[in-house]
Every structure is written in C-alpha cells, then in structure tokens.
C-alpha cells in the first residue's frame, strides 16, 4: 500500500516524500499541483531526480484542488495512507482562494479518503497559527470556532476551517499536525522556502522598514523544515488516529520577538555593507501605528516596497499575541526528541540570508559556519 502525499511538489510535501522514500523505503504516490498534463510533465521531470535510485517506490499523480474531481485518477485501492500538505501558504492569500484551495481542497481529500478501502490514516498538515489570535495555551485539541478571537489573515482562517473539514469526518482515521513557522531547511540555516519571515528581514536589511509591529515579549514558535518532516513521518508511523499534534517546540524554547530582533541585527552587523549603513534597530509600534504606516504608503513608495509592507501587514496582528504552545502529543510520539536551538537557528538563518543576498546567490547547504 502506498502513502499518497498531496502537494508533493511543494516544500514540506517534498521533504516528507523524500524522507518516506529514502529513509523508510516506503512506496508513495506523489500528487502534485498542475493545471494541465503538460505542466504536470514539466514538474514531474524536475522532481524525478530527487528520487533517483528509488524510482520503483514512486508513482505520480497530478491535479488542481479547485477542480471538481482533483483525485479522479488516483487508484484508491493502492492507498494505505494520505498526507495532505497541498495548500496555499501565503499569508496574504485572498479569502476566496484560501477557501477554494485550502478548505474545499481538504474536503475533497477527505472524500477521497472515504473512497480508499484500505486506508490506515489520513493526516492534514495544518499550522500552529491556525489558532489565529487566540492567546494563552494552544492545546493539541480542536479549535472550536467560538474559542477563536479572529485571525490575522485568510491563510490562518483557512487552516482552521481545514481542520474543521477533517474533524467533520469522525468515521475516518484522521490526524492533524500543526507545524510552527518554518524559517530554514535545517539547523544549518539554509533557506529554500522564503516566506513572510524572510521578507520582513529583507526589509530590515535593506533599510526599508524601521518600525516593527508587535509586543517585544510575545514568542515566536520557529522550526526547520527538517524537523517538521521528521516529526510528521514519525507521527505517521505511530499509527494513532484522531490525534492533534502541535509540531512546535515547547514554550521554554519559544523565542521572544525582542530576542529575535537582537539576533537579527547582531548577525546583520557581520555584513560589512549593512554595518556601513549604521541602520538602527526598528522601533516598536502598536498595531494602529503600523496600520497608519501601511495606509500612508498606499500612494507612495515603489510597488516592491508596498508589496513587502503588505506582506508584513498580513501577520502583524499575530505579533501582539502571547501564545503558549503545548506539545505533549509530539513529545510522546517522538522518542529521542530534542528541541532545536532557536537562537542559533535565527542566527544561522540570518547568516544564510546575508551570504546568499536573500536567495539571489547560491550558497551550498552546510556552508554557514560561525
């Protein structure tokens, strides 16, 4: 029986697929997003070398979650497990697109799961920030709509609603894994997948943003792609069902926003060009102040800077929320668990960003030292 991975051409889906194939030698059916056969062929041709030597373990499928029957060509009799990672992960995704792709796409995955006669489990890769603006303990428990105090962006809302879609099928052996904010591939700091975190750091480095919305004491829950992939694969192997797991490090490891900024600026100062510009650390602003700034920029500034500000604005409210992550289910499922050093991770990630000029230059994995 095969494990079907949706979004296998994406960042986390790809990491999970490679771990299953290379480390565990498990057969997989990799389902990638594509709107046409031609597009699928191009994507598959690009991905195929990642499974060199293990081709016999991999079959390929493709489709678009917005389509009426995205999984119509899947051989359901072969599927023993489903890992649903396909989603739009951009914070500034529109409500409409987030609903169609992330929420309704999850519903379609659950319908597919219901048609798989030999299904052992179906797992949704969710986000720790599906908890939206909820403060305090973030338990490994359902997010009841009434408990939520809203969301920072449509992405967060769509992940919460995706979880609702999963839990709406108690007849299926589901699991929900909520990943923290992925800032690097591994503890070495190499970055493949750039997101709003890196976009914000780029604004700081370029001197384009000198105010930071947020409460200096609020904590970020940062992880690496390697940690998420390893945790998800280990969780898949534990064969539990109807389990919600926060794939994050505990609150003692969560890093305050203020400490993140300290580390970012200390690391940036190792860059001679940054040092010459003597750019001060950003000043803290409340949400109203930041909203005024974004609104004030609406007619000014380059399109690039406005876009970057919109990106920061898409998660700004989250920076004021004090969350305390519970990860007991994760610890119970991961023998030999060791938390990643968050400060070192931030430092190495910043070094990578500087060295690679925010991804414009190639820097080999493992090349960041010091």
């Amino acid at each position, binding site marked *: 029986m095969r494990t079907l991975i949706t979004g296998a051409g994406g960042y986390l889906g790809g990491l999970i697929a490679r771990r299953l194939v290379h480390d565990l030698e498990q057969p997989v059916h990799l389902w990638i997003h594509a709107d046409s056969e031609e597009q699928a062929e191009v994507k598959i041709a690009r991905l195929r070398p990642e499974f060199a030597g293990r081709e016999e373990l991999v079959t390929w499928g493709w489709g678009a979650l917005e389509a009426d029957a995205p999984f119509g060509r899947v051989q359901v009799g072969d599927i023993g497990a489903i890992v649903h990672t396909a989603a739009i992960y951009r914070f500034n995704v529109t409500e409409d697109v987030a609903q169609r792709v992330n929420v309704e796409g999850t519903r379609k995955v659950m319908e597919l799961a219901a048609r798989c006669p030999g299904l052992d489990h179906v797992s949704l890769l969710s986000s720790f920030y599906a908890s939206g603006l909820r403060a305090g303990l973030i338990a490994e428990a359902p997010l009841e709509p009434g408990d939520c105090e809203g969301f920072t962006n449509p992405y967060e809302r769509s992940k919460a609603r995706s979880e609702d879609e999963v839990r709406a099928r108690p007849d299926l052996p589901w699991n929900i894994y909520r990943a923290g904010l992925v800032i690097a591939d591994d503890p070495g700091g190499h970055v493949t997948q750039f997101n709003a975190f890196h976009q914000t750091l780029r604004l700081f480095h370029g001197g384009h943003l000198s105010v930071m919305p947020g409460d200096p004491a609020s904590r970020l829950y940062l992880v690496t792609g390697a940690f998420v992939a390893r945790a998800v694969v280990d969780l898949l192997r534990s064969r539990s069902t109807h389990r919600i797991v926060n794939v994050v490090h505990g609150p003692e490891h969560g890093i305050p926003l203020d400490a993140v900024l300290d580390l970012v600026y200390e690391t940036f100062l190792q860059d001679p060009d940054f040092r010459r510009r003597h750019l001060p650390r950003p000043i803290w602003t409340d949400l109203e102040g930041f909203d005024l700034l974004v609104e*004030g920029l609406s007619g000014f500034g380059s399109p690039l800077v406005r876009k970057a500000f919109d990106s920061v604005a898409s998660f700004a409210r989250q920076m004021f929320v004090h969350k305390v992550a519970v990860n007991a289910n994760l610890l119970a499922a991961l023998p030999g668990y060791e938390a990643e050093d968050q400060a070192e991770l931030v430092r190495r990630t910043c070094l990578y960003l500087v060295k690679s000029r925010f991804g414009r230059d190639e820097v080999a994995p493992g090349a960041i030292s010091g």
Partner: protein
Amino acid sequence: MSNDVYLNRFALALGEGECSVRTSWEAGRTRTDVETFESSGFSRHRMAAEGTTSYDLAYRAVQGLDEIPRDATTLVYATALPLNANMGDPGDFEQSRDIKDLSDFPASRLQAEFDLDRASVVGLTQQACTAMLGAIRLARALLLAEPRQESILCVTADRFPAGALYEQAYSLVSDGASACVVSRFPAGYRILACHAITIGALAHASEDEMAGSHFSFSHRIITETLELAGLSIRELDWIVPQNTTPRVWQILARALGFPLDRVVRETVADVGHVISSDNLVNLAALEASGRVRPGERLLLFMASFGMNWQGLVLEKV
C-alpha cells in the same frame, strides 16, 4: 563667560507664488498624484517668482528680523542645494573658464548689503535640509569657543532651479528662507543641546530607503538630543519638526510616548516642506498661536540627504 547661548529672534521669507497641489501636478512639478498628496496632508506650496533668486529670499528673511544685527561677528549662510551658494552664472564660466565666475558667494553679498562689517562669513552647503540646525549648532559652538564672538546671524535660503520637481522624499516642497540671531543675550530661546548624525554610506539611499529608515533614525536623533540636554521625553513640551506628511507623527509620537497634539504640524498643508526652514516656519506658527510659554522646552529636528539628521533643544525664556 556664561555657557548659555540663545536663539534670540528669527524671521521667514517664503516664495511669492502660492500653488495648489493640483496646479503643480498639472504643471508637471510633482510625481505624486493630487489625491495622494492631499490625503497625506499637503494642500499648497510656495514657489519663488521668476527672477527671484535664493539670495533674494535670504535678503528678505534678514530684512524681516525685528532689528538687523549690525553688530554680528559671524554670518553663517546655509543652503540645502550647493548651487544656491554661488550667484555666478555657470554660462559665464563656460565662456571665461575662470573659476571666479563660480565663486560669487551670497554670504559676502549679504554681509556687504546689510553693512555687517564686523562679521566674517561661513558657508554651509552640504547638510541639505538640516542646514539651518547645522548653522545654529555652529553658531553656538563659535560663541562658546571664541570670546570675541558676540552675535551670529544664521541664514538659510533655497529656491529650486527652473524645471525642478517640487517634491522630495514624498513631501511637497516650497522655496523659502529664514534667518535667526544667536547670541549670549538672554532673550528668545536658550539653547540646551545640539546634535548631528551623518551616515555617509546612506548618501545614495533611494527615496524608499530614506522613508524606510526615517522612523528609527528620527527616534535615535530625538532620543540622543534629549540625552544631551539631560531631559526625558516627559520633560519636553513641544516637538517642532520637519514638514513631512503628518501621518509620520502619528506613528513616531506613539513610539516616543509623546502627545501628538504637542507636535507642531499645522503648517504642512499651506507650505509643505520649506527645505531647511521648516523648523523656524513651525516655531513661528507655534508662537503665533500663543501656546508656547516661558520655561517650556522644545525639540527641533530635521532629516535630509547626506544622510544627515540634526536635533536642537530649546527652552523658551
């Protein structure tokens, strides 16, 4: 000798012509559209009439002082634009190839026209819009360093060259000049502290980079200037700022913990950014409103190309 130095009196001279944002937009003098400028707090600006030079504006500013400081021992003549520090015609130089035609200094002319016979002159041309604060800082330093100095006339004057955009770093610009007298005579405002920062590596910063770094550098210059004055932000009564969009102050005042209604912003709509005269334009407005009282402390600050930031703390006598 007392270490106290005072900004005794000051005067302004703005460009004669008043233009609406729309007029200047339609004339191609701005890049930012009318709606964006108006919603950012700019309505009108002032332009010098054809034939009016920056020197003419400087002359009018000095003439506007209650009393011409005939006893001035130094004249500091500051321009934001280096080209306004030469009255010679570059066309003449092309003909003559004699650099004398590039050395017709307005400071010397002003000294002669107002019979400031005791005054030696100093030109300040590389501090951009912070130049008036730089002139006051220099005047204070001279008064503290040289016993012979008694009274120093500081002047700043700029008009944009023909064809220039009247927009800089997202602000609508006016031509204008200002003059002030700095001395040991205890009248006007006691100078409590002067401060300046230059980050040359940012000299070629784009407008986006200038705007982006504005908040943290403004916060820094204000905080450091107050430290030099031995004051906390709570002990400050007024901020007399550069004329940028008032929205900047909605953000910066919050970050500083300073009441927004104590930031003098009311001249922005009518005159926009009067180059290095903004602070004195706003100080005049504050005085005219009758709100500033003896003993109150004021912080003046500017940011500009170079990149330069300057701050000044005053106490009303």
